Each structure stands twice: as C-alpha cells, then as structure tokens.
C-alpha cells in the first residue's frame, strides 16, 4: 500500500469531503495560500477557491463563533486552530455554545463542525505552544474528541468527523505531520468509539493516545526482546470511548498502563484508569499505572522539556516492573 504523511492524509480527507459535500468549508489563520504554518492544507485554496478556504484574522473566539453559527444554519465548517494551546481562547464558543446547542434546544439545533487542532511537546516551543489539552474538552458533554495516532487514523477519523452531526475536536500530533504510514487509495472512514489493537500481546496492555501510541509501540518492541508481550491499544476517540475493547484487553492481560501526553493530574489517564478499575477490578494484578505528562508548564530548555513527557524507555521500565510484580508492593 502507498505510504503518505499524516499531513497529506489530513489534506486528502478534507479535500475528499469538500468535493463530496458543498456545505463543507474551511476557515482559520493562514489556511489559504500559506496552507497553515505546518503546510497541512496546501493546495486546497487552489482547488476550492478563497470562498471555501477562508483566511481569518487572528480572532480565535470570533472565528470559532462564526463556525458555530454557520453550522447551526446548514453549513459544515472545518476550523483550523493553529495550536492546541489556543483552545483556552475558544472555550466559551466551544463549550458554552457549540457543545450545548443540541441539548439546550431539545434536539432542534445541531452544530456539525470540526475543530482541527494539535497537541504535543518536545518541539522546543515552550509553555504556550506545547500543551496537550484533550482532557479539557473531553470533560464537556456534547463534544466528541478524536486523537489520531498515524496518517491512517488521521484520514479516516477526519472524514468521520466532517460527516458527524456534532461538534468534534480533533487533536493532531504536531510532531507527526511528516510521519508516513500506509493509507489506502480507496475511500474509508474510521468510526468513532472503536478502539484499535495496534499490536496484540498477552502480558500487559498499553493504552496510548495520539503521539503516545508510537511511544507505546516502541516500548512494546523493546519489551518483546525481553519476553514481555505488550498489547498496544489505541482508543482513537476519547469521546465516545470504546470501553469494551479496552476492558477485554485488560481482562486478558491483567495489567495496564495508560499513556497520554496531557498533564497527568485531573487528566485523560485518570478517566481511563478509573473505568478499567471499576469494571475489571478483580482481573487486575496491580493497579492500573498512569503515565501522563508531568504537572509542570512545558519548559523551553531541551534539557528539561524531554523530562516532562512519557518516553519508550520510561514505559519499558514501568512495564517491566509491573510484570515482575514490583508495583504490587507500592499499593
């Protein structure tokens, strides 16, 4: 199968959906000629014209608000939010307005919009351009949250998001834009709420999101050499969350590590660990281990930044101890 970059995959997904449905349009800062700073959207304005690929002023709350209103009245906007860190600016439009319209109107209004944004540290971008804020939006009822882990997921989830009748937030890992993966030429969609077993294994389950799937896979590779067969499971969407697949895996392996690049405290790993514990308590050999980012703003210095996120080495070490029964004594 051909291999394309994550960047290309997102571009294809949006282009295909724009060809299919004239109501779909794109807006954001420097999305047209510049094709975004990450060049993900290059070529789209040439095909679809400046009416459907709209360069906006630097007004995040404003243009997200416009997207909500456009979506409520029949359009299907895809909004580009250049950095996930800017989510803070649009929380009111996203969480008070978009997320609640359908419910508040008793089902009469819908807000079919997609907010594309990103996550991920270790790019030396410092505290305001490196955050992984998926926990904030996953907490708000009415928002769906997708976390593609490779070009394949990026394309399939984006297409599903654009067709969804609800506001969807998609987090791409900004360090993965140039990473290639096999992506079929033929059209496909990836349903929301369907976790994917990236690598089967019987000894320990590594549940990892987005950027952390690569970390988990690298760790699983190393562990295999030591005779530990780690299963890597990618939930693909946080909302809806495919509890069944996660539970099935953990019940089989009896051990789990949850890895996410958001801050650990009050974050994504807590929710997933809690659901596993609630529903697989007596299958667990040890408490579910959480590995999130450190609870510190992201430091600029490379010497510090690399310490703040989960690494393959860290996962290997933890899995090794977990499988050796060492973490049992901690609790």
């Amino acid at each position, binding site marked *: 199968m051909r291999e394309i970059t994550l960047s290309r995959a997102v571009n294809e997904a949006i282009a295909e959906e724009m060809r299919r449905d004239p109501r779909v349009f794109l807006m954001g800062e420097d999305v047209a000629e510049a094709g975004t700073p990450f060049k993900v959207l290059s070529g789209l304005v040439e095909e679809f014209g400046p009416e459907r690929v709209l360069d906006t002023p630097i007004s995040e709350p404003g243009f997200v608000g416009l997207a*909500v209103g*456009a979506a409520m009245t029949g359009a299907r906007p895809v909004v580009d939010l250049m950095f996930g860190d800017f989510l803070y600016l649009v929380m009111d439009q996203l969480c008070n307005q978009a997320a609640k319209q359908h419910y*508040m109107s008793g089902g009469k209004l819908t807000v079919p919009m997609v907010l594309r944004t990103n996550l991920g540290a270790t790019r030396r971008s410092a505290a305001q351009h490196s955050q992984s804020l998926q926990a904030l939006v996953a907490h708000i009822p009415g928002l769906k949250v997708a976390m593609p882990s490779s070009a394949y997921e990026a394309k399939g989830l984006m297409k599903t998001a654009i067709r969804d009748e609800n506001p969807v937030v998609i987090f791409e890992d900004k360090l993965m834009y140039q990473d290639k993966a096999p992506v079929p030429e033929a059209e496909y969609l990836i349903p929301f709420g369907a976790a994917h077993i990236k690598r089967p294994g019987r000894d320990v389950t590594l549940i990892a999101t987005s950027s952390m799937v690569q970390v988990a896979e690298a760790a699983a590779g190393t562990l295999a050499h030591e005779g530990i067969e780690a299963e890597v499971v990618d939930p693909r969407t946080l909302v809806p969350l495919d509890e069944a697949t996660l539970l099935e895996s953990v019940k089989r392996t009896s051990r789990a590590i949850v890895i996410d690049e958001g801050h650990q405290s009050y974050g994504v790993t807590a929710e997933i660990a809690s659901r596993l514990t609630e529903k697989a308590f007596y299958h667990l050999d040890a408490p579910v281990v959480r590995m999130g980012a450190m609870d510190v703003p992201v430091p600029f210095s490379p010497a510090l930044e690399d310490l703040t996120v989960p690494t393959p080495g860290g996962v290997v070490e933890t899995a090794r101890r977990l499988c050796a029964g060492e973490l049992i004594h901690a609790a």
Partner: protein
Amino acid sequence: MTDARTNSEDYLRMYRQMVRIRTFEDNANQLYLSAKMPGLTHMYSGEEAVAVGICEALTDSDRITSTHRGHGHCVAKGAEFREMFCELLGKAEGYCRGKGGSMHIADQSHGNLGANAIVGGSMGIATGSALRAKLAGSDDVTVCFFGDGATAQGLWYEVMNMAALWKLPVIYACENNGYSEYTKTEEIAAGSITARAEAFGIEAHRVDGQDVLAVNALARDLVARARRGEGPFFVELETYRYHGHHVGDINREYYRSKEEERDWKENRDPILRFRGWLVAEGIAAEAELEAMTAEIAEDAAAAVAYAEAAAYPPAHEVDMHVFAD
C-alpha cells in the same frame, strides 16, 4: 415589500406584536411572583418597539440571535405563547422540551437561533449565520440582538472585523437600555458605541428605540440593503427596561430612581405612543385596540393555564440530545 409594510394591516400587526410581548411578560412576571416559575427571568417590557420594529422587517428565513432578555425577540419573530410558556415552566411541550428555559428559548421554525445566557455569546453565531448565507448564495439576513453591556465583550470587535472584511449580511442591533445589571452604561462604556462600529468601516445608526415606526423604517432599509450585499450594519437603539434586571430585582433605587422609571413609562412608552398615533391617523379605533388587547390577554391566560397543566419531560429524556445522530 416596503410598500406592504406601510399599510394598516402591517401597523396593526406591529401593534399586536408589541402588546403580545407586554402581555407575555406580565404573565411571566406573575408566574415568578407566585412561585410557579423555576429560576429567574429577564423582562423585555418597555423595549417592545425594538424587537417588533426589527423583526417585522424580516421573513421567516431571516435569522435572529437573541439574549438573556429574549422573550420579546422570540414573540416578535413569530413564536407561539403556548410553547413559550411551556418552555419557561420546563414542560415537555416547550420549544426546547423544557431543557432550555427562558435563557435558551429558541424557535428554529421562525429563524430564532436562540436566547443566550452568555452576554454577547451569540455575536459569533449571528455572524456565522450570515457567513453561511453568503457562502450558500442565499439572500437571508441575520440580526444579532444584544445589550449595551455586551459591547464590552471583545468578541463583538472580532466578529465585526470579519463581517466588514467579508461584507456579511448581518445587522448588529444594540439595545441600549442604559444599564447592564445594576450599573449605568456610561460607567462601563468609554467613548462612543457607534464610533466603535464605524472604526471597522461599518455604517452605524442611532434610533429612538421607543418609536416602532422609526425602528421599522430603518430596519426595512438596512435589511433590504443587506440582502443586496451592502452589509454589515450597526444600529444602536435607545430604549429602557421597565422591570428590574431580572424578576427578582425589586429594590433598585440604589442604582436608578423611581422618577426616571416613571418618566420612561409615562412619556416614552412604545405601545402608548404607537397607539396614540394609530388612533390619531384613523388607522384603528380605541375600541378595536382594546378588543385586541383583551383577546391577547385571553390567549396568554389560556396558554399559561395550558402550560401549568402540561407534563414535565419524562426522566429518560435527561440524557437524550447530548449528541445528534
């Protein structure tokens, strides 16, 4: 269209709509005072000429966005008493199946995209509706209602800029009733509100919001021009709310005087003024207007009774409508 609105039928319809709003609010206030209404609500009484003058210039395919003080816009845009009272009482037959209440009442069928409990919260929505119209090549216009207090929200400047850059068919209608909550406008708004819109290259108007004919004439003109792609526009409407900020705001002398309230009610009431004009111009007789008022009062009473007796939504609806399929 312009002609159609200058005939007697249209005048009477405007009058009726203003009285319907006042009557709706009196009943809503009564429901609150008799502890039959859950929560608080914000009365539109005194501002009827604004909603009616503007909404009468719109068709059902035109959209509006409303505010926390939204009953007036809702009635003016064509909503029914029954579904409105049901909504205010949290009943299943309300416009939003009881889930929205006063602060989120919406009426899709007549183009009301909903009240909003975030001050200024609908400015993006209205502008986005206008963007959709432009992208889809549709000629509908969107009116964004908000209060003077809402001009302090940065969102307004962001969306005005985009509306101006892209020539969107949106009209920003600022209901300047002199207060945001318990504070006078001049204490929280520096400079000039019209100048703020003009700075973005947006044509701005100021109009007496108690004069329904003046409001309607301006609105018809701007709506027609917005349909032709000459928008956006800004209108500041000078008006006044008769009640407190919300129904529970009873003792308000610490922030505004009884004389001031009396002056507006006695000398600038939009309904009394219009009524005087209708009679003086021979468009309607006093008795006719009395009868209309009485009929509306009956409608309202019936709707209230209906809503009081109506059923609450069943428990299983609590987790319906979080997501659309």
